[in-house]
């Protein structure tokens, strides 16, 4: 499924998707909707101290997502310098969706289900929300893989275009 020449672009896309997906989680669910925080099931937000405590951990979470975006940009820059890497939008977008889905699935499985440090929407229906989050992540993985499969035919390396003499 993954030709060796596409791998640097796919790797960059997965890292970018993970980082940007993490930002969606942090910005939308932690800050705008305020459904949960990083350790809100360990230290429920009851006063200003616990709120600031959770804010600190949210900050660390955002630091990790920032690092992933930076790493992704670095890998993308390196892939861009290689003429043998097919410069395919489908491959990059597919890998980004795959990365976002992988992040949602792994984060959901580890943090929500196994360790229970926080839940998507704490309350009576938290299990349903957590399972919905996992299903969403898996559907993103499937969509990303499908897009990567579609992009398999786009194998023309950029050097083929660069060899065309200028008019």
């Amino acid at each position, binding site marked *: 499924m993954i030709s060796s020449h596409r*791998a*640097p672009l*796919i790797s960059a896309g*997965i*890292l970018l998707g993970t980082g940007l997906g993490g930002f969606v989680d942090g910005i939308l669910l932690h800050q705008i909707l305020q459904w949960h925080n990083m350790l809100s099931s360990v230290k429920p937000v009851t006063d200003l101290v616990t709120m600031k*405590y959770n804010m600190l951990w949210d900050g660390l979470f955002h630091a990790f997502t920032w690092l992933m975006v930076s790493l992704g940009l670095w890998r993308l820059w390196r892939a861009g310098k290689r003429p043998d890497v097919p410069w395919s939008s489908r491959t990059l977008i597919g890998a980004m969706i795959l990365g976002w889905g992988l992040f949602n699935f792994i984060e959901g499985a*580890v943090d929500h289900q196994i360790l229970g440090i926080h839940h998507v929407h704490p309350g009576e229906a938290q299990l349903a929300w957590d399972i919905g989050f996992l299903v969403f992540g898996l559907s993103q993985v499937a969509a990303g893989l499908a897009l990567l499969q579609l992009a398999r035919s786009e194998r023309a390396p950029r050097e083929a275009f660069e060899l065309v003499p200028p008019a």
Partner: protein
Amino acid sequence: MTRCSSRIAASVASLTLVVAAPAAACPSCALATEVRTRFWADDFGYHLAVAALPFLLILAVCWRLERAAGRDEVREMRS
């Protein structure tokens, strides 16, 4: 030279004021200290590992992907 050094001294003084003044008048410093104390005391290493785990797993996936691709390329070049 004297003018330059006096400018540097003025800059350092104003910077010190900028940093020191809010710290001296910080209304929630005690709160921040309490939060930081809890932060380090409450299983910091464990929580950090938990927060980093999903990212580390995905990094491992990418590392393996690029490593396998590198091996394929070497094989391609040799054949």
